[in-house]
């Protein structure tokens, strides 16, 4: 199973409308990007971690999917630690590097914030089926169906492109072009893939057109995209975690607004 494909299962979360997952993740991060203190991020992270158990992923899948965030967060933290705003006592000073009270606090806040925003987003998106998302975007948010379905059909071509890439690589070796520099070979191969993908894309467009896509008739939807109480609940959870986190940080005086 590839990292691109959605995880399937029977847990409740799988049947929640993807649009609600998108909205919940957006609202949550909306609250968390107005401030850069560690309190709000920590509160949000604690509240979120109570819910991860219900996210429909087992431990292995959870860490596999979120691996990038676990790597990115400490790296960003380290950068902030070394180059962040100088404030309070300075512990290490070396050319551009300053480690001070200010940069230590900011580094912790950064790590927590990336986790608090990134983890729920990845976890919510991991169980989104692209087809269901397209249904939701078109039916609930009323985005243009041409655009939504075009993107959805295009997404399906990605796995074909991966196969194409592999084939192109082997073909280059077979044609005597496998010994040249990596960069040049990559460029040539990337161009070949571009040509192939345009051809695949136009064939797919023809096939879609042949099935009446893009005509003047108002489209119906075979799958109803429902936005009911469960969806509102998820959105409310996302918003409340953000709101509680922000309120706590204001109440404790730790808040540091990004703007103003």
């Amino acid at each position, binding site marked *: 199973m590839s990292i691109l494909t959605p995880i399937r299962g029977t847990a409740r979360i799988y049947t929640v409308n993807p649009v609600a997952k998108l909205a919940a993740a957006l609202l949550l991060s909306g609250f968390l990007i107005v401030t850069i203190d560690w309190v709000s991020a920590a509160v949000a992270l604690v509240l979120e971690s109570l819910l991860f158990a219900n996210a429909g992923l087992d431990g292995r899948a959870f860490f596999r999917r979120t691996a990038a965030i676990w790597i990115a967060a400490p790296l960003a933290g380290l950068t902030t630690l070394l180059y962040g705003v100088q404030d309070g006592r300075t512990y290490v000073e070396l050319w551009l590097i300053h480690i001070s009270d200010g940069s230590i606090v900011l580094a912790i806040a950064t790590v927590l914030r990336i986790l608090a925003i990134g983890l729920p987003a990845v976890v919510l998106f991991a169980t989104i*089926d*692209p*087809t269901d998302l397209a249904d939701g975007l078109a039916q609930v948010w009323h985005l243009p169906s041409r655009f939504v379905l075009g993107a*959805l*059909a295009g997404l*399906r071509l990605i*796995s*074909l492109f991966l196969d*194409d890439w*592999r*084939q*192109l690589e*082997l*073909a*280059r*070796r*077979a*044609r*005597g*072009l*496998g*010994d040249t520099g990596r960069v040049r070979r990559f460029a*040539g191969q990337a161009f*070949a893939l571009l*040509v*192939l993908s345009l*051809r*695949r894309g136009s*064939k*797919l467009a*023809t*096939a*879609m*057109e*042949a*099935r*009446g*896509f*893009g*005509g003047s*008739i*108002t*489209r*119906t*939807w*075979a*799958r*109803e995209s429902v936005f009911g109480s469960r969806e509102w609940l998820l959105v409310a959870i996302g918003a409340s975690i953000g709101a509680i986190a922000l309120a706590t940080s204001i109440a404790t005086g730790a808040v540091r607004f990004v703007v103003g």
Partner: protein
Amino acid sequence: MPIGTHGEDTAAARDERAAAGLRAENWGWRHAGRSSWALRGLDLVIEPGERVLLLGASGAGKSTLMHAFAGVLGGADEGEEEGELLVGGRRPEETRGRVGLVLQDPDSQIVLARVGDDVAFGCENLGVPRDEIWPRVGKALAEVGLDLALDRPTSALSGGQKQRVALAGVIAMRPDVVLLDEPTANLDPAGVVEVRDAVAGVVRASNATFVVIEHRVDVWLDVVDRVIVLEPGGGVLADGDPATVLRERGEELAAGGVWVPGADPLGGGPARERPVLERAVTHPLLLEAAALAVERVPGTVVADCIDVRVRAGEATAVTGPNGAGKSTLALTLAGLIPRAGGTLVATPELSGVDPADGVPPRPRLLRLGRWRHDVTPAADPARWTSRALLTRIGTVFQDPEHQFVSGSVRGELEVSLRALRLPPEEIAERVADVAGRLRLEELLDANPYTLSGGEKRRLSVASALVARPRILVLDEPTFGQDSRTWAELVRLLGEQLDRGTAVVAVTHDRAFIEALADQVLEVGGS
């Protein structure tokens, strides 16, 4: 033949589904940027409810006509149109959705990720109410003989299943006309039968007009009641009931590349000069696999315990069911991917390196952990340089487009010769020679992507042969080819075999195996 042969009751149940006729009046189309017309001056009438097999040589404009009837040829910026084309008395653009079109490439016409959703796609576009869509989807899948869960991922289907899903998607739209543009060209023999039977079932159950394009007449003979042969460039060469057309025009059709039942594309002659038995053991061994295991993705062995000896001047056919790992085996034998286990040894005859020398010629190629067995680098094709591979093993890929690396046919033929750093005179000489033998002279300046299917296949074979490899590995070289290209390929490979080139071909093609193979290697299955 026309209308109403299926009884009043079914016709009534199908309410508005009256079949529509097709009509072309002095019609012509020229693709944008081309100087010649794909079709011109075509007059044609297909009555409602007729089942027609449309034949014609490669490049006779059959596909263009089908796209035009389906209303997907595009507007004025895609090309120039003259004359008139009518579907049920109306212009095709106005009747989109009433005409269903199934295309050749299974991968390019599956739109959605789940079987049920894909079949429902056309209905949605036509504005069919939701309550009505799902019964239609179930019925359409049953009609094409697919018993699949609606949420089955389309990516997990075989080529034949994908084509049947596409057909189901079309008939769920309840079209007046169903057009099939070489629906079986990319399928193995089992897939061909699968799709043909599905179409036959659909044709029986429907009173829509059917038109199918295909080279292989015998496959469709029982399904159609009229054969129309297009003349290259426009006009109708022959038209009538299948038996009459084949009797009167069979020879002409066969010469034009149509697979006429009973006609031998090789004209009765053998593909190879010397009979099979005369060769045998005296020929030097080039490549030997013992207990070979192959994998595409490291860690996922797709076939193992393979023993095969490739000798100069001998043809090995690799057969077996879909997914048995035949293509992966071919790529491994061709030295393109490292083996997963067992041994694959190139003899000094092939590699030109005497094992007594003992010194691995290119130790820097060693990547630790990658090469697990005690085959010396000189004897392991996967460790040769790309350039060294050229004159030893040439590969022809299943999809010619994957191996195009240049903007012109001439460029394609020169690539490997340049890599071999041959002098310009020799490059010119070899290109002229191979282009002549494979009828590519006229096309030397054309862009490879603009060639027809048969021309692309000839080019992909030519570009491997031009380096004069000792072994030629081909993956399904005869898939979807018309009989003329088929015969050319078989003769050319026969010639190569007679000259001492070894041929390894992955193929399902019985006739190809009978014409050429010395040994058959069965992979997977029983």
